């Protein structure tokens, strides 16, 4: 009888163990730095990790999908929106590069064909993408072609930046919400012949061809803010052209294109390995920015000195 009970307890234990969190099975040989954050930044971050490991083979840096909103669970956060001041006070940031957010649409739709030609002014962007009680419905009614806007359900950096730029909150973005990442926004558009959304430049372009992902159209916007979409506002042929245009233009002269930073941050109590990784990124990270769809940071926001000062203090 005792033996039978022991067998049962054993089986239950094995069963529970099998269901337990994978954390329990995690073990690393070397010091580990865990990075999490905006999903679309992972490709670039992974490239950095690979390069970093070539010179720092004893530090293991891994990317982990964010499973908790508690930042203390992670060593480095790679975020794509500006944090509240209260959070900024507790962390050290490195502003690595910038990305732009552009309106995109499935290229099969009549909507896409029409607005690829006409382009989008500020007013049109607000009418198309946002719930605005006081929107000019007469003008909204003139948008004849069918479209379905996709947006993020959960709090998301890109959605937040896009909405804030036009004077709204993320919740004001209209359309079908998706639970997933920004990559899934891209998938949703490609699955829906009348789908539209907003995407960050690193997701819009095929890394090989440097042209927009097959099936996706970028909708030109009124970049010079003159109320019209001129020929000068159409510079979306390929990724280098966009980067060249946006990097060479004074940010103050760019309208209707939200541009925000990708930043890495660590807690003030960060491990030396995490700090080492960030220092490496400060030194070398900018080399890959353009290839991955990012703009180089403005000189004024590099804050390299400040981080190095922090790093020295920690060491």
């Amino acid at each position, binding site marked *: *009888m005792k033996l*039978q009970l022991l*067998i*049962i307890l054993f*089986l*239950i234990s094995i*069963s529970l163990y*099998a*269901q337990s969190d994978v954390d329990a099975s995690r073990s690393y040989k070397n010091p580990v730095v865990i990075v999490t954050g905006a999903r679309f930044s992972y490709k670039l971050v992974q490239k950095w990790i690979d390069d970093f490991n070539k010179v720092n083979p004893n530090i293991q840096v891994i990317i982990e*999908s*964010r*499973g*908790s*909103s508690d930042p203390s669970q992670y060593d480095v956060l790679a975020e794509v929106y500006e944090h509240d001041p209260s959070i900024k006070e507790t962390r050290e940031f490195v502003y690595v590069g910038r990305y732009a957010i552009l309106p995109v649409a499935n290229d099969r739709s*009549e909507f896409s064909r029409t607005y690829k030609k006409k382009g989008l002014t500020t007013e049109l962007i607000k009418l198309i993408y946002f*719930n605005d*009680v*006081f*929107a*000019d*419905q*007469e003008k909204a*009614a*003139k948008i*004849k072609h*069918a479209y379905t806007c*996709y947006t993020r*359900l*959960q709090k998301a950096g890109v959605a937040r930046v896009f909405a804030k730029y036009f004077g709204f909150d993320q*919740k004001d973005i209209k359309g*079908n*919400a*998706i*639970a*997933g*990442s920004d990559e*899934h926004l891209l*998938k*949703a558009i490609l699955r829906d012949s009348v789908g539209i959304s907003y995407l960050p430049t690193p997701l819009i372009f095929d890394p090989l061809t440097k042209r927009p992902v097959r099936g996706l159209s970028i909708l030109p916007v009124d970049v010079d803010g003159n109320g019209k979409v001129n020929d000068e506002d159409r510079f979306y042929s390929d990724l280098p052209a966009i980067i060249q245009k946006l990097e060479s233009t004074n940010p103050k002269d760019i309208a209707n294109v939200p541009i925000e930073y990708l930043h890495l941050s660590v807690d003030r109590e960060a491990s030396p390995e995490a700090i080492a990784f960030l220092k490496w990124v400060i030194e070398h990270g900018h080399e890959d920015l353009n290839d991955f769809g990012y703009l180089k940071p403005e000189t004024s926001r590099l804050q390299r000195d400040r981080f190095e000062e922090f790093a020295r203090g920690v060491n």
Partner: protein
Amino acid sequence: MKKILQFIFVLILFSDVVLAQQRFIKGVIRDVDDAALVGATVVIKGTSIHAIVDLNGKFSIEAPQQLPFTLQISSVGHKAQEIQIYELPEEPLDIKLASDNVLSEVVVTARRREESAQNIPTPITVVGGPMIDDAGAFNVNRVKELIPSVQLYSSNPRNTTLNIRGLGSTFGLTNDGIDPGVGFYVDGIYYARPAATTLDFIDIEQIEVLRGPQGTLFGKNTTAGAFNIKTRTASFTPGANFEVSYGNHGFIQAKASVTGPLGKKFAARLSFSGTQRDGVLYNVSTQKPVNDLNNLGWRGQLLFKPSQNVNITLIGDASRQRPDGYAQVVAGVVPTQRADYRQFEQIIADLNYDLPSRNPFDRVIDHNTTWRSGNDLGGIALHVDAKIATGTLTSSTAWRYWNWDPSNDRDFTALPVLALSQATSKHEQWTQEIRYAGDFSSRLSGVVGVFIIGQDLKTDPFHIEESGSAQWRFSQSTTSPLWETPGLFDGYGIRTKSRLQTFGAAVFGQLDWEITDKLHLLPGIRYNYDKKEVDFDRQTYGGLETDDPELLALKRLVYTDQAFTADVDDTNFSGQLTLSYRPTKIVNTFITYSTSYKPVGINLGGLPTASGEVLIDLAQIKPESVTHFEFGVKTSPSHNSTVNLTFHHTNVEDFQTQVQTAEVGVNRGYLANAEEVRVLGVELDGSMRINDFFSFYGAVAYTDGEYVSFTNAPVPLEETGGPSAFKDISGSDLPGISEWAASLGAELSSVSKKVIGQEGKYFFAFDTYYRSSFSSSPSPSNYLNVDGYAVVNARAGFRATEGLSLFVWGRNLFDEDYFEQLLPAAGNAGHYAAVMGDPRTYGVTLRYTY
């Protein structure tokens, strides 16, 4: 024991497998104020997997194996939301549903393109299908209680007047020979006969009522306004509604509507409506109730969608009414200026007769001629809508019919005065409209169209008016004993054979030029061609066969042979100019000047006589010319409210009116022109949705209508027999216009509940309608005036989002006794009858929505 062990072992292994396979999505659903939306439903789209949100606003639902999938989230009073799940979230979803207490934007097609009602520079009232269904407003007569600028008078379907701001059609009895001034459109098709306005609605999506001339927007000219009724269209998404109501007076109403796809490119909808009610008057002569309801109607639609840009819709409909209906109750007796022996009281005393009641609200009549109103309307229409460039090209082709089979007791007594009054008719119409509506450039939009209509209205086979043995006493105009000649008028009547063929064509257009973002100029123009051909032949028959010229002269005083033909055509230019200015996004102001035109009228109800001679020159009356000014402000003071104000002023020259005469042979009156009339007024309406649970609307209209000049009007009933048959009534009030009319309604509802598995809300709603007194006589009378009245309707029950709803309702809750119209009896003996307002009715409605 071993077996138990094996069982536990298997159980554990199995639970492992299950736990490994089952994946759940958890979340919380709240409103924008962070309140938990208890009872909200979460469904995995395309499956029957669903979950209900608990008291804390939380839900947990098993996720399908295959990603992505879609969650459908709905909660009564909130906008439904769909969420596509591309990866299972590690943290609970935090979902907020927007409240629908934001006033739903009312989209109208009044300008032949979809626009917000608040944005168009036209006074317009919109009543949605759900409101129509809930309020039991199943015909125009009931809808008018929701729109105080609308008047409807119906002493039977043919004799129905649909007016807006007091203008449109002749007051009282209708003459088939003129055009209605209020266009009645159903799914874009013009319904030429006023009888259509008495039909039960079938599966209505929305009714738009445009006030003021609309000739530059609509195919048929509309001098006073338009009813633009849209029915629910065929849908590729399957759906169904069933509704049945039971009430007192034997009220039963059933409605059904089913829609769905018939393939990838075809969809259909079939709709039905049937209404029955026992009579609400009692006829002591037949010992039966009369004025019942007995209506059936159906509509079928077939939608063919060959591409995203083309819709082809074939619509067929038929309605059939068979009421013992439209009897009127003697409401009073007027002393006329005739000799004492010709007064009504003296006449019936001599005939040893008395009325069954002197109180019309006893709802008792004593009529010996059958009341019957066989009213059949139907037709078929083909619509083609093609999106071309930035607009829509529409072709609407239609054929419609009207078969009218009435029988009336026009003396309103059981005396054999008028034994028969049966104006049976057949009508056919063909219409074709082609129009393009859309944007012509970034700042220019509008509508242009051509419209043709052909009509053929004929007697079927005759219109019959026939006297009985008591006619002599009512018609007796001298003390000559010859009037008493036995059988002189017994069976003496008139048989009229007439045919009216009309052809109308119009080119119309209205542009909207956006001068600046805030300033719009809207010019419109219309060119009309109208042709009317009439062949009218009335022959007397029956009565005493005699060659005695004195007896023949007496017979001629009652009925005469009349015959005439007419063939007239005319053209006309009219137009409008509107300036619209929107100083802010929430204010829309506009000022409009327009002209309009109603073509020549032909008297088809018989002509009056003078000295025994038929006044043939009255066969045709002049066209009517309308000049109209309007100033309006539409506002949306907040996201959940609207307030609109309109001032209007209309002058009509050669106003086409139907006037009553003492002659029995013209007992439905005849058409005449008043030189000029004027209507002015102010309209204020608004609505507000305070929160998810309380909303209200209100509208008030002040209208003042007068004959500016009508120098040769027939005298009113009480002046019959006076020195002249005509008088100058310039400066007096137009009939059928209440100075004040108002509607007010509200709805109170609960939070979302689940009752017997149905998600929905408890609700209580009421609608009130008030109108002040009005003249019910084309020439102002001291007697034929309808007192003001107020009617309160209410309903309460449970309204499911989808599934079974149940509510009780009451109409005219306080059982207000009121008249809808007063009409003198034929011959002007002095008595007059009333179209009675319905007494209190109450019942219960069950509705199932899928």
